[in-house]
């Protein structure tokens, strides 16, 4: 009996039982979709994570925790416990090993998006992904105190174009009652999408942040006629007195550890410096537990799918005794019967796994933009990775191995049934 003929019989037999076969294929497809989807989102999150900041050698902030500093300075999550005084900033920035220093000032928001005050050097030195500088989709850098540069998500979600006038609120809630509405800002630039928190940030000059807080005292806005007008602001002294954090680039990477130690033991102020890559790894380790749990669940879902397949083959054995006896009568050996079941399992698993692979590609291609929008995680578009192929291969292999049990049962059954048809 040529193998191809036997496989054809296996195929026709499966098609004959197409309803249960299809359900089995779908359950395997869904489990493979889930497994691969989890893996793609996980690896997308991890890459996105390590791509949020690059080219920065140290981040300096008030002394707190490394993760806290990383979260508020890079991810715009949480708040700084304290600020860095302008004197300390100038002192550190003027050290000979420093190539560049970009101060940032956080604490205000615009309709739920964080506002970050910084200098023009930010656009020269802040890099994401694989050493990518920030690119402008439209407009240019801020020059005036009231100029604003938007991240791509801010512009698209709020439907802002160049020249739009916006009001910045104090505090970081999406609904804020203390609005700096006496001083409207104007959009002069919109950045290209980076897939990082930069997309969800409103950038202004450091002086702009100072300007909107002019006349404020004790966290309360100036009342009535005491509120400064734009002309008052331009006349005022807008030199910042403090910043939230500082991004540093060094002339030589060899100096990183020395400088980090110097800053951590800085006498004039309680400061700390973190190496972004190291802090990112620490942060990923924290997230990694959830990631592991997710992967474990996905693995169990795949196992469930495979057990379902085995159950299906096993329960079909009784109704297929007749089929087996007919095949035996025309000369099929017990090993043919076993091979029939194993090839059926492998066939169903192949169909399921490949369908799952297609599903995950389609789903991620469709949902990818939404996921990026909502979480900033790039899941990667249509791409079949070696991990995908290994998964598909493993599912088919496991299905064939698991089918060994029903196949053995059928083998025993066909030996004891002999040439009698039992229905």
């Amino acid at each position, binding site marked *: 009996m040529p193998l191809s003929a036997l496989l054809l019989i296996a195929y026709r037999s499966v098609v004959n039982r197409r309803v249960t076969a299809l359900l089995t294929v779908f359950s395997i497809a869904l489990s493979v979709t889930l497994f691969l989807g989890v893996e793609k989102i996980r690896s997308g999150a991890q890459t996105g994570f390590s791509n949020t900041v690059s080219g920065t050698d140290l981040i300096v902030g008030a002394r707190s925790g490394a993760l806290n500093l990383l979260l508020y300075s890079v991810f715009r999550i949480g708040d700084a416990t304290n600020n860095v005084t302008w004197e300390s900033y100038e002192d550190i920035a003027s050290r000979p090993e420093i190539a560049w220093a970009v101060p940032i000032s956080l604490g205000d928001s615009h309709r739920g998006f964080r506002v970050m005050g910084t200098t023009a050097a930010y656009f020269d030195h802040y890099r994401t992904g694989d050493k990518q500088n920030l690119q402008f989709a439209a407009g240019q850098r801020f020059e005036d105190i009231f100029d604003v540069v938007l991240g791509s998500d801010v512009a698209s979600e709020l439907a802002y174009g160049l020249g739009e006038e916006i009001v910045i609120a104090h505090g970081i809630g999406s609904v804020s009652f203390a609005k700096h509405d006496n001083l409207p800002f104007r959009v002069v630039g919109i950045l290209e999408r980076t897939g990082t928190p930069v997309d969800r940030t409103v950038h202004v000059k450091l002086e702009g942040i100072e300007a909107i807080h002019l006349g404020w005292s004790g966290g309360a806005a100036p009342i009535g006629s005491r509120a400064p007008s734009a002309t008052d602001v331009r006349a005022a002294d807008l030199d910042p007195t403090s910043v939230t954090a500082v991004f540093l680039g060094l002339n030589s990477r060899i100096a990183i550890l020395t400088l980090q130690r110097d800053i951590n033991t800085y006498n004039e102020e309680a400061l700390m410096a973190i190496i972004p890559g190291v802090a990112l790894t620490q942060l990923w380790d924290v997230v990694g537990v959830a990631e592991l749990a997710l992967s474990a669940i996905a693995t169990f879902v795949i196992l469930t799918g495979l057990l379902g397949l085995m159950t299906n083959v096993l329960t079909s054995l009784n109704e297929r005794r007749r089929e087996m006896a*007919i095949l035996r009568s025309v000369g099929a050996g017990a090993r043919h019967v076993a091979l029939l079941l194993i090839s059926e399992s492998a066939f169903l698993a192949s169909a399921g796994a490949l369908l799952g692979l297609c599903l995950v590609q389609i789903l991620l291609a469709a949902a990818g933009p939404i996921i990026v929008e909502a979480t900033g995680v790039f899941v990667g578009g249509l791409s079949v990775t070696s991990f995908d192929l290994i998964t598909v291969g493993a599912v088919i292999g496991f299905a064939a191995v698991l089918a060994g049990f029903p196949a053995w049962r059928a083998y025993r059954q066909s030996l004891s049934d002999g040439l009698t048809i039992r229905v």
Partner: protein
Amino acid sequence: MDAGRAEASQKTADSAVVINDLLFSWDDNDTPLLDIAALSIDRGERVFLHGPSGSGKSTLLGLLGGVLLPGAGGLSVLGQDLASLSGRARDRFRADHLGIIFQMFNLLPYLSVRDNVALSCRFSSARAARAEEAGGVGSETNRLLKNLGLPDVAMERPVTDLSVGQQQRVAVARALIGQPELIIADEPTSALDADHRNIFIDLLSAECSASGATLVFVSHDLSLAKTFDRIVALTEINRADMKEAV
């Protein structure tokens, strides 16, 4: 070699089935299901094997088909001692030399009429070759179905469209294609009504005679036995006590 044994050996080769002191039981220590002192069927003979249910018919068929092995004694089919063959060789022997027809449900529901008949040739290159010699598997299928009174059956139709009687004739065509030497029919008429039974047996007998095949027809219904060359009652040749099995 003495003359007597040579003569016996020659006779074995000429016979379709030769059984000597055959014992069969499911377990070695169990009471035997079958205990047959002697049974010989000549080539070309059409034998009616009669026995009530539980008399060991199915077991005997399993032995003849090479699916079961005797516990002791001699069993030779078409001159071949089945016990001396490996499992694979017995499967191949069955594919090459035997045609088997069951009571009912002979056909694979997911194959067409043509593919069901051709199934025998798929498992046996010898039978495929003999069918090719006779004009090809397709034309042999046509010829057999025509002789069996199914000339108009669409070959590509699913077999589930056919009546039980038609299905049984397709099963006969499958058993006969490629000219196997021994046809075993296990109560093939039990699902047919009385008129169709006699027609069916006549067709089966005629086709076996035409191809020179030996026919072993098993049934509990003695009224069907009249056209056969010989009637063998299993209850008479089987010395095992079958009361427990019944």
